[in-house]
């Protein structure tokens, strides 16, 4: 199977352990990821905060590139990127005037691919295919599936799973032989891109998520977003210091768990590059 790939800045920056994991995992599933040539940043929170038009134009440029490069399905593993791409697509498809304006601004027609977040991409590969490929079932692993905000919200844009009680990640994790725990914080916010600009907020929100996961018996949390990973993993020691607790919680990307179950080594997936918890 061939899928287009929009990495976004995080996966080419300090979250490139996510890209390492994604490539290894999809490679093992016999899926080739073709990176969108000359892709640009989706604008993220900065664009939708400071300039509405730009927050549509930057994703529109990438959608135009996808169309030019014949890409029909585009995997955007960062939930901020996938939401911004979907948001722009939705806005443009419902408004001929805006579509014309965007074509003028980005100098091409921003048609383009069906955008997939990481979970949708794995569902596209197929739950049965994944199940059949499992070589090392993750038995004894109790995991909290954490969706955060932008995989499911706003539901009219994300058009993915249930925005209050999503279950798609649990289905994948269960197919790998692991046990997803029932818990309360799966769609609460971790503080997202405020990691640098408002650390107090990130520590407060992420602490609640880790505490609830631990209280429901999870040994690890699985995410499908680089920002969620930064806040729960990289910031975990700062959270522990601030709140005087010890979580020692391993934070996996969803493709880490798929990769492990397929028999890939933790090092191949870049799990040794995470900050918190123990390597499986």
């Amino acid at each position, binding site marked *: 199977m061939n899928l287009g790939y929009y990495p976004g800045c995080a996966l080419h920056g300090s979250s490139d352990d996510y890209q390492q994991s994604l490539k290894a995992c999809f490679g093992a599933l016999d899926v080739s990821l073709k990176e969108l040539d000359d892709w640009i940043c989706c604008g993220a929170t900065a664009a939708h905060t400071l300039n509405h038009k730009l927050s549509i134009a930057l994703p529109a440029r990438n959608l135009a590139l996808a169309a030019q490069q014949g890409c029909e399905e585009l995997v955007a593993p960062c939930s901020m990127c996938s939401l911004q791409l979907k948001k722009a697509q939705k806005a443009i498809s419902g408004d001929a005037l805006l579509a014309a304006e965007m074509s003028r601004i980005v100098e091409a027609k921003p048609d383009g691919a069906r955008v997939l977040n990481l979970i949708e991409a794995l569902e596209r590969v197929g739950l049965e295919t994944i199940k059949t490929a499992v070589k090392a079932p993750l038995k004894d692993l109790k995991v909290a599936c954490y969706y955060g905000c932008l995989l499911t919200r706003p539901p009219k844009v994300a058009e993915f799973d249930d925005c209050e009680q999503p279950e798609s990640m649990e289905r994948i994790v269960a197919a790998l032989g692991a046990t997803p725990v029932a818990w309360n914080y799966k769609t609460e916010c971790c503080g997202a891109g405020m990691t640098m600009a408002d650390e107090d*907020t990130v520590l407060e929100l992420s602490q609640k998520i880790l505490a609830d996961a631990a209280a429901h018996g999870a040994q690890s949390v699985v995410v499908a977003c680089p920002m969620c990973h930064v806040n729960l993993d990289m910031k975990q020691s700062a959270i522990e210091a601030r709140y005087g607790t010890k979580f020692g919680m391993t934070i996996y990307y969803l493709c880490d768990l798929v990769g492990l179950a397929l028999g890939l080594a933790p090092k191949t997936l870049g799990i040794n590059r995470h900050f918190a918890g123990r390597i499986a």
Partner: protein
Amino acid sequence: MSATMQSDSISLLESLAQTKFADCYQCGKCTAGCPRSAHMDKTPNQIVRMVQLGEVDAALKTDAIWQCVSCETCTARCPKSVDCAAVIDALRQVSYERGMTSKQQAAVVLFQKAFLDSVRRNGRVNEVEMIAQYKLEGFAAMRRLGFLFEGAMLAPRLQMHHKLHLIGEKVRNRDLVRRIFARCMDGKE
């Protein structure tokens, strides 16, 4: 502010947010679900109320609009389909353009600015360059020495995990990126 200017501001905000302020009947569900409302000077439903009443300037000056983490819970749960997160985005944009942003929240504003400036130059975010600009502009605005070094201890750990990339990426068609920014932000063709 004159009545005409006020109604101009309201229609500008409505066109940016693509939502109808009058639809809100103040049930407060947005505020109940907001992870930041306990810390805000005005809660999300109060912000929407201020805009409904034409208190636009006061809304533009709140801390709250910069405390919002854009989690979209308010928008997802509104029973009247008011896009509350988009209302806050619209307020942030106008507040930024008119130089009315909260001094208390200068760090957040400058972070978003540094992020966009880096994308404007390179087409992608260059983390090191963005952080350098954010720290320098933040220090100039807040005059607090500690600000310069907050988070600096993370750098060696990032290096240890091979997550520190000193040389950022640049896209090839940077001229087009600059034209897109100019068209959207500077109203230039």
